[in-house]
């Protein structure tokens, strides 16, 4: 990896990456990705399976070396200064592994020990975390006996055990029922209000759209776009469209940018083209539509 980093770390960015690339043999898992994620924000990464989201997260979480490019997480290099990053970052992988025969309390105590937290602090720490993730009544339950949603919340509590500045969450809502997803979203917003920066990937895009300050769209290892959700949708031309049903029964869809364009389109169809319009419906598109287009290869 090229470790030369231009300039001083920027205080306003929790994650900064330039030209981040990872090759597995001939496969380009990540291809020249640049990221600027503001401190205190919730940043969502969307993309189909195999797009490179988890690879990017593994590099940022100090687990994987990139083939080229550099990154700075919480002001430190995840390759050259992994311990400094680990002190400040909590990582939640897409699958929560559990140990057999350990209670929820013991699980968190074990992870507190792995971050060198004094034993005298464990009791109050575990109490606080379990209250935060609403698992305080499950403290003596064997971890393996928890529901999937509870395991995800426990995994989040584990990532928070050392009070990190940054949370990197890989598909935390995967496999959760709607109620659990809403609870998770509320929890993440609460963590943001506590000053945490959060980077999250998810397939539950409606929630991502509601909670993220910015998103990055990744496909085939490349970052297609990055910014606030509304701007991305407009940028990729999937923000809004008009569905028109004509007199001959055909239905056509026309992308539009705003209300003016909508009126112009209607005038063009009726006056200029002299077509019989039976129905004229505005369709607001969201990240779900964007995701569908990406996975269909429409967005290039």
């Amino acid at each position, binding site marked *: 990896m090229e470790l030369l980093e231009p300039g001083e770390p920027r205080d306003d960015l929790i994650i900064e990456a330039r030209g981040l690339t990872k090759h597995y043999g001939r496969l380009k898992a990540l291809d020249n990705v640049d990221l600027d994620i503001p401190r205190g924000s919730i940043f969502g990464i969307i993309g189909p399976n195999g797009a490179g989201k988890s690879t990017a997260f593994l590099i940022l979480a100090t687990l994987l070396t990139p083939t080229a490019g550099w990154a700075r997480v919480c002001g430190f290099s995840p390759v050259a200064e992994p311990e400094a990053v680990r002190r400040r970052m909590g990582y939640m992988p897409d699958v929560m*592994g559990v140990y057999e025969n350990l209670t929820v309390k013991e699980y968190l105590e074990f992870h507190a020990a792995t971050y*060198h937290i004094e034993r005298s602090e464990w009791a109050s720490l575990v109490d606080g975390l379990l209250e935060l993730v609403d698992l305080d009544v499950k403290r003596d339950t064997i971890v393996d006996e928890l529901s999937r949603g509870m395991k995800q919340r426990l995994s989040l509590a584990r990532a928070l055990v050392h009070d990190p500045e940054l949370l990197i969450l890989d598909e935390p809502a995967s496999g959760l029922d709607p109620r659990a997803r809403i609870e998770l979203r509320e929890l993440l917003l609460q963590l943001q209000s506590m000053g945490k920066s959060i980077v999250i990937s998810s397939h539950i895009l409606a929630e991502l759209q509601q909670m993220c300050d910015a998103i990055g769209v990744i496909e085939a290892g490349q970052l297609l776009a990055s910014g606030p959700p509304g701007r991305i949708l407009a940028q990729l031309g999937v923000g809004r469209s008009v569905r028109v049903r004509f007199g001959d029964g055909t239905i056509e869809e026309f992308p539009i940018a705003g209300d003016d364009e909508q009126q112009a389109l209607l005038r063009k169809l009726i006056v200029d083209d002299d077509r019989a319009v039976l129905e004229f419906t505005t369709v607001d598109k969201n990240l779900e539509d964007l995701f569908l287009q990406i996975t269909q290869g429409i967005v290039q």
Partner: protein
Amino acid sequence: MNRAGNRAGTVLDALIDVRPVLDRELRQRSRTARSMVVMTIFLLLALGVAFITYTGETTSFNGEFGIARQNVGRSVFEWVLILELVLLLFVVPGISAGAITGERDRQTLIPLQVTLIGPFGIFFGKVLASSAFVLLLIVATAPILAVAYLLGGVAFSQIVSGILALMLIGFLLAVLGVACSAILRRTAAATLIAYGVILALCVGTAVVFAVLMILSAVSRNGDPDSILAYLTPFYWNPFVLLAGAAGEVSDVNGPWPLSGIRTGFIEAQNINRQFAADVAVAVDEPGIPGGFNERPGELAVIPLWLRSSLALLLLSFVAATVGVRRLRTPSRSVTQ
């Protein structure tokens, strides 16, 4: 500021890092029935072998082929030690070769690797957890060895050194098992390779030793390197360490099971001494420098148990180094 504690990164800190994994492993192990079942079988087999040996020896003592009664204790002692070693050879890789691959299978390794304990703490936490179980098995059978002591023919110091040798071998086996588990991705492959290495140590070294002995005897005046060659594999064998620790090298005349190994050592030394003398005359040197050779008249200055311990510790060091390196992150690939 976050809660993560600060450490200076000293060797002591690295040793302290072992504790969280060790604590958790021991806690989990104590809650499963498997540990209790293995220990029960281990104890029953040790008791069975002690009883059969005692019965057999005291019966033959009354007949014409009997041995001196005071040596019944030694026979029980050595047979129980051999049984314990054989059981350890089977049990320890079974519990240690899944140590890291099990974490991978359960998806718990990555959350561990992003903490502050590092690859050394993970590796040796696993090794010590397996070794602690070995310690428990050996301590549990200590009363049987105490009975052998009461029967006579074996010194208390030999019982202690025999137990220590078993512990050292148990530690080596745990290191080998965990190293295989760190290097390979699947528990089945790690277990297979661990058993393969152990087979090479127990049987392979004996075969190589025997072949080199024959070759060396044939070409006594040949290449001096052959001395080093035929002595070296001898020490990598766990049974050799046990034989060296459980009795004096001079204990070669009894009918005890480990006498054969000690006899082999003496034979090898005799050939070595004769050969060293021949070479010394030829090159005007008092001996052959390096390796495990003695100068003439310095037979067994370095005891057999120490030579074997050093050889096996060297092997443990190499295995641990490779295993720890394999767990280091960030790495070029991550097995999830």
